[in-house]
């Protein structure tokens, strides 16, 4: 038997004091299998030891929330006995090492989180962050990640309907791949993970276990250094075909009442799934590892417990229902094995070849997982950067074209055309708008879905950035006419052991909390990915937010496209002269400075509620929130989508570059018939919402009186070409 030395403990990522705690709990030395189990259970990835204290502060409740954080995914009520189940998860480190498989298995993992709860997945999203466009690895990573996401989702037959993509040097050595899945279930058919029923069979279904990704969970919790590319840890390979079968088989079994509890095997595989099920149910579990379906010979208990082979699930069945369940899994040609039973010992007892190979108390191991109050320092908020300190460009039309063809704003069509975004026949708003919209199959309801985060704002001022990320998702949902319901998050940060990084985390959480509260928009699920750091340089703090909203009548949906000539264009919200952290500042002045646009959550709420109500009342013909690049970019996007121009006149109270490119929050552009525009103006006044007429739609150029006039086709050219050009291999 392997002796547990200091080195082995350290290799398992356990600190000295953590190992002390292990000894205390067991009253003896662990064997290697047990040490491995502690190490993954207490890894940052599984235990949330650095983040738990702060995550607890987020608002998680609302009358429509059926299940908040803590289960595999969050559940919200969408009426008529139906629920939306959704979550976002990171697969950052694996995707950097092997972009195709890393991204693919990321999608596979988040899909399982959602269908393990009884939902049929109906939409996927992906939030991606890559290094600077000209970094030597960027093209390879973009191409691998995008084909991996498509490869998995397309094969599963679940539409990937949107996402977001940023490029910034802070991600050069640590890309972010965050995948989100939304599913739909009946509220009386939701499945949870708490094991129950002493003596009930513990059942393993899905693919066989191999030596895949052993120690993936600890890898995702350790900082990169230049060696890690050489170490080449075992990468998991995804098998979307098997997952599709697993999905159908699970849903078929879920239609019966044979399942007591079910949990997917994600990071740390059999270990975390079995411990979580036992811990939640307050029971013990006994597993005979000989019965685990194995792909390879000679696997040790350590390897079986730590394997991260994909496409597997663990279930507790009602007694006597094994044969019925087995028949379903055999029909779908999947492995099915009874591997153990629920016990009243409160212990996890693993046997192999007749020997006990691990004997661990469940509750102490789970409950006394370390929890840290890591030291943190607040990021000092920078001062706003006034427009009058920057020269007004001589050629504002050219400036707009520069922004439209910049890495941040250029079209992502090259990406979404590689994703099947229409399969399942319910995508009624495809990628390219503010939020994707999918109908709830067979009803007239629809879900709006978006992911957003502006990492440069979070870096400059975490609290404002955290609030802004939440508010932007809320705004994107609102712009489609949906009622925002709830969010999931994926908190991607650097090394939490550095106080300034921990301060970014704390700040972002504070901002998110304020926004969730002000907008009645709770957090129902989420994920934390720390140590996104290479050689001591962290990524920009990136709390990616995934929001969903409900359109009670899908026919009320609004889109960003200008619909007809001669319609009135209106601006909701106020513009200031703060140019801090704008894309304009970065692209035109080459500076990343100043305070991000301020967030006023009361105004945010008023403006959004006004826009949504106006859409739902049928007064609005097109709507778009204003984000990166400001008003001029929003107008350009509406013109591109509608393939028609506009003539705009701006008040001259602001310098031209602020009026066109400032990124003030809580703003939207909407269009209406001339008659309805008057009604909107009256309503806005009553609701204390700033609303002004900007101009009219029509012709084939975007014209801002006295400032710029460019043809829609010129805008399309720069906007559509940037990403394909980046991705074209030289000489091709």
């Amino acid at each position: 038997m392997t002796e547990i030395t200091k080195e082995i403990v350290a290799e398992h990522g356990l600190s000295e004091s953590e190992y002390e705690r292990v000894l205390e709990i067991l009253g003896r030395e662990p064997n290697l299998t047990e040490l491995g189990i502690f190490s993954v259970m207490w890894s940052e990835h599984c235990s949330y030891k650095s983040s738990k204290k702060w995550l607890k502060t987020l608002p998680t409740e609302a009358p429509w929330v059926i299940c908040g954080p803590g289960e595999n995914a969050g559940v919200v009520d969408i009426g008529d006995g139906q629920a939306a189940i959704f979550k976002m998860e990171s697969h950052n480190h694996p995707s950097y090492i092997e972009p195709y498989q890393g991204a693919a298995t990321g999608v596979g993992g988040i899909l399982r989180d959602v269908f393990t709860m009884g939902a049929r997945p109906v939409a996927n999203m992906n939030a991606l962050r890559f290094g600077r466009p000209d970094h030597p690895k960027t093209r390879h990573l973009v191409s691998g990640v995008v084909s991996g996401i498509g490869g998995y989702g397309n094969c599963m037959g679940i539409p990937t309907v949107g996402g977001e993509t940023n490029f910034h040097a802070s991600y050069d050595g640590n890309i972010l791949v965050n995948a989100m899945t939304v599913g739909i279930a009946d509220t009386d058919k939701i499945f949870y993970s708490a094991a129950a029923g002493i003596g009930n069979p513990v059942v393993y279904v899905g693919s066989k276990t191999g030596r895949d990704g052993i120690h993936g969970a600890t890898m995702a919790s350790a900082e990169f250094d230049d060696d890690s590319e050489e170490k080449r840890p075992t990468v998991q390979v995804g098998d979307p075909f098997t997952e599709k079968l697993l999905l159908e088989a699970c849903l078929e079994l879920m239609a019966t009442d044979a399942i007591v509890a079910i949990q997917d095997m994600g990071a740390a595989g059999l270990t975390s799934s079995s411990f979580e099920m036992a811990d939640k149910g307050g029971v013990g579990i006994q597993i005979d590892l000989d019965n685990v379906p194995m792909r390879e010979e000679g696997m040790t208990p350590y390897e079986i417990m730590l394997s991260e082979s994909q496409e597997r699930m663990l279930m507790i069945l009602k007694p006597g229902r094994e044969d019925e369940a087995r028949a379903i899994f055999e029909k779908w040609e999947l492995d099915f094995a009874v591997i153990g039973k629920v016990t009243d010992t409160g212990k996890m007892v693993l046997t192999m070849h007749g020997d006990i190979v691990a004997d661990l108390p469940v509750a102490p191991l789970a409950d006394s997982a370390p929890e840290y109050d890591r030291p943190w320092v607040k990021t000092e908020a920078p001062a706003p950067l006034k427009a009058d300190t920057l020269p007004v460009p001589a050629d504002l039309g050219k400036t707009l074209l520069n922004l439209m063809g910049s890495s941040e704003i250029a079209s992502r069509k090259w990406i979404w055309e590689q994703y099947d975004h229409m399969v399942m026949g319910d995508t009624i708003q495809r990628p390219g708008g503010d939020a994707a919209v999918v109908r709830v199959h067979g009803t007239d309801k629809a879900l709006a879905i978006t992911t957003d985060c502006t990492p440069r704002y979070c870096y400059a001022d975490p609290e404002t950035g955290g609030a802004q990320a939440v508010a932007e998702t809320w705004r994107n949902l609102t712009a489609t006419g949906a009622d925002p319901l709830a969010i999931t998050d994926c908190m991607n940060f650097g090394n939490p052991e550095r106080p300034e990084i921990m301060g970014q985390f704390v700040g972002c959480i504070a901002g998110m909390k304020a926004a969730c509260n002000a907008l009645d928009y709770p957090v129902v699920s989420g994920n934390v990915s720390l140590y996104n750091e290479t050689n001591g340089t962290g990524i920009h703090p990136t709390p990616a937010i995934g929001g969903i909203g409900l359109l009670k009548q899908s026919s009320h949906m609004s889109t960003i496209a200008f619909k007809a000539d001669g319609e009135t264009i209106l601006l909701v919200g106020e513009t200031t002269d703060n140019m801090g952290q704008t894309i304009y500042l970065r692209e035109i002045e080459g500076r990343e400075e100043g305070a991000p646009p301020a967030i006023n959550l009361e105004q945010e709420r008023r403006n959004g509620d006004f826009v949504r109500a106006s859409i739902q009342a049928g007064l609005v013909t097109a709507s778009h929130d204003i984000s990166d690049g400001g008003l001029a970019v929003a107008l350009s996007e509406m013109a591109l989508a509608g393939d028609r121009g506009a003539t705009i006149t701006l008040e001259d109270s602001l310098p031209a570059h602020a009026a066109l490119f400032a990124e003030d929050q809580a703003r939207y552009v909407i269009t209406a018939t001339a008659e309805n525009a008057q009604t909107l103006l009256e309503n806005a006044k009553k609701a204390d919402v700033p609303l002004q007429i900007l101009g009219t739609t029509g012709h084939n150029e975007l014209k801002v009186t006295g400032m710029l006039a460019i043809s829609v086709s010129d805008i399309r050219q720069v906007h559509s070409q940037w990403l394909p050009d980046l991705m074209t291999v030289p000489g091709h």
Partner: protein
Amino acid sequence: MKARVTISLKNGVLDPQGKAIAHALHGLGFDNVGEVRQGKVIELDLGDIAAADAPAEVEKMCTQLLANTVIENYEFELLD
């Protein structure tokens, strides 16, 4: 001068394709068939290159592009 590079999945790496092929062969009545693994062969025309340089050159192509050494092994032979 030509090269033929054979790329196969490392031992222990899941091979969904191989699994599906084995399954299909069983379905067609080839019951004896055991494990199936699928790999790639890439045939390259190396053009005008000194025979002595070829091995190093192909080796470089393999590690830089042809094989994903995280999950794949490669081997090659030179033909002419």
